[in-house]
């Protein structure tokens, strides 16, 4: 930055002395992120609402809890686990589903909405590069949403466990069976790994593809994001009678290394999130995905630069 300052005329240098020449990149990124959270408040409102709704349902359901716990004592230990953990897994699934819906909606609108309402002209009138903006947008589904979903899920399950304990103690029962069958901390470790590595990192090329389409489409980004993929699959099937492309998509959506175990018979949510932590991080599929995602992002940055407001 100093060389640029030196190249400026005398009159310019005076005002430069009064204010710093540039804002550090991390601060620009931070404010770009803040902007996304202001603009798309559903990023946190939707999972909070889902969790809140779930908790209301759960609270009403605790009426049956003492009876359920009494019945559980007669069951085998494995069935006990299943019975007790079921609502907690349901909460996880609900919040993961919310995550994916929010991420999809967000990515398709992120670079499309600002062109549609022409506010891109305002954003571009500020000294923030297209790269910073696009990276901030990409980090919402890849980093922010997994962490946010994790935090909200943990809080939800914690409240569930507390509510259950209060209800059980209130009806004169012991909460020991409940807590013995509820390895919350272990569940959370697995959940964290699953959310960050799978929903965040493994899905990164999907999010970046959606961002790319949202930077490119003049209208109907959802259709542009989905129909061409479908078309490629169909054309491949008709022309070559093969389905490599469909298999590729399925591999990405279902998750390479995770599905291996998933199909090996442990088809429960529990096993899915109790894989060895970090296993996915060493799979080549993840890193190939990152490369593809980086390519999509680079194209999105370029498009944001070239595309006029709609």
């Amino acid at each position, binding site marked *: 930055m100093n060389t*640029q300052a030196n*190249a*400026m*005329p005398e*009159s*310019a240098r005076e*005002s430069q002395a*009064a*204010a*710093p*020449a*540039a*804002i550090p990149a991390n*601060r*620009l990124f*931070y*404010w*770009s992120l*803040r*902007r996304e959270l*202001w*603009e798309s408040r559903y990023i946190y409102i939707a999972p909070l609402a889902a969790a809140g709704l779930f908790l209301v349902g759960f609270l009403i359901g605790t009426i049956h809890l003492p009876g359920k716990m009494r019945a559980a004592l007669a069951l085998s230990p494995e069935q006990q686990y299943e019975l007790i953990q079921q609502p907690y897994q349901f909460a996880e699934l609900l919040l993961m589903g919310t995550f994916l819906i929010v991420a999809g909606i967000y990515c398709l609108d992120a670079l499309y909405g*600002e062109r549609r*309402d*022409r*506010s*891109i*002209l*305002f*954003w*571009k*009138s*500020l*000294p*923030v*590069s*297209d790269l*910073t903006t696009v990276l901030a947008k990409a980090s919402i589904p890849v980093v922010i949403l997994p962490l946010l979903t994790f935090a909200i899920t943990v809080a939800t399950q914690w409240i569930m466990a507390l509510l259950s304990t209060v209800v059980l103690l209130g009806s004169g029962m012991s909460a020991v069976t409940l807590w013995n069958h509820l390895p919350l901390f272990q569940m959370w470790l697995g959940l964290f790994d699953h959310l960050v590595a799978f929903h965040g990192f493994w899905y990164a090329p999907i999010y970046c593809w959606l961002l790319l389409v949202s930077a490119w489409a003049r209208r109907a980004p959802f259709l542009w994001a989905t129909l061409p993929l479908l078309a490629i699959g169909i054309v491949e099937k008709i022309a070559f009678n093969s389905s490599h492309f469909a298999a590729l998509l399925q591999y990405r959506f279902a998750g390479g290394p995770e599905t291996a175990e998933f199909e090996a018979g442990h088809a429960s949510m529990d096993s899915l999130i109790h894989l060895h932590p970090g296993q996915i991080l060493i799979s080549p599929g993840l890193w190939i995905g990152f490369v593809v995602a980086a390519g999509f992002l680079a194209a999105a940055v370029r498009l944001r*630069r*070239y595309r*006029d407001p709609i």
Partner: protein
Amino acid sequence: MACIEARGLRKAFKTTIALDGVNLRVEEGRIMGLIGPNGAGKTTALNAILGLTQYQGELRVLGRDPWAERDQLMRDVCFIADVAVLPRWIKVSQLLDYVTGVHPRFDRAKAEGFLAKTTIGRASRVRELSKGMVTQLHLALVMAIDAKLLVLDEPTLGLDILYRKQFYDSLLNDYFDRNRTIVVATHQVEEIQHVLTDLMFIDRGRIVFECSMEELESRYLEVMVRPEQLAAARALKPMHDRQGIGGSVLLFDGADRQRLAAFGDVRTPSISDLFVAVIGNPAGQAQGAAR
């Protein structure tokens, strides 16, 4: 160093040529009016200057290439576009926070000071503000940025007279000084006549006329001629001839003021009359240019 310098600036879209070899030079400390009919290339020229569109030819803004260095350039350049481009969902307080966060030359206290003179509430969202208030808000932001170049593209379009007057008054009184440069493109030429220091007409992608306002006053004269003297006046070769209410109005380039005074009242032409004379006449398409 010139603030803006363009040589052979070209930009073609699929079916039209928006800029057809534009040469222009805007010195520091000027207020330049870029006037032209619809579709003349005003916005394209401004977009090129702001690094929003790619172009062919040479263009330097504050010594930088705007297309390659937009984000750095925007530390020293501010921009208000024709329609309100402030995001509709944003709160005024968020807008202040954000610009404070990303702009090294933004003086928040100054912006708050400008806003205090308006009725804009900190908690309001942009979508709740009237069009005039949105422009006030944008102007307050821009005036609090210690920039070297301010680009305005039809900034007062759709505003009522009070807001329009206020807009240019604020710019002149609270913002403009010798170190700043303002480029404004507009159709509403009457209200900027006394604001500008320089004038440039653009038509069909070319700069067809340029002069400073001092030059305008010394060179161009307009006289209302009584019918009996019309033939004698026309012999002096006016550049434009139009019907006024009380007779013909003739516009002269470089004529002698004393001689013209014999025909009637001599005055400096308005920008719009000059515009019609320059663009409307030779091409024989006064209709398109008169707007």
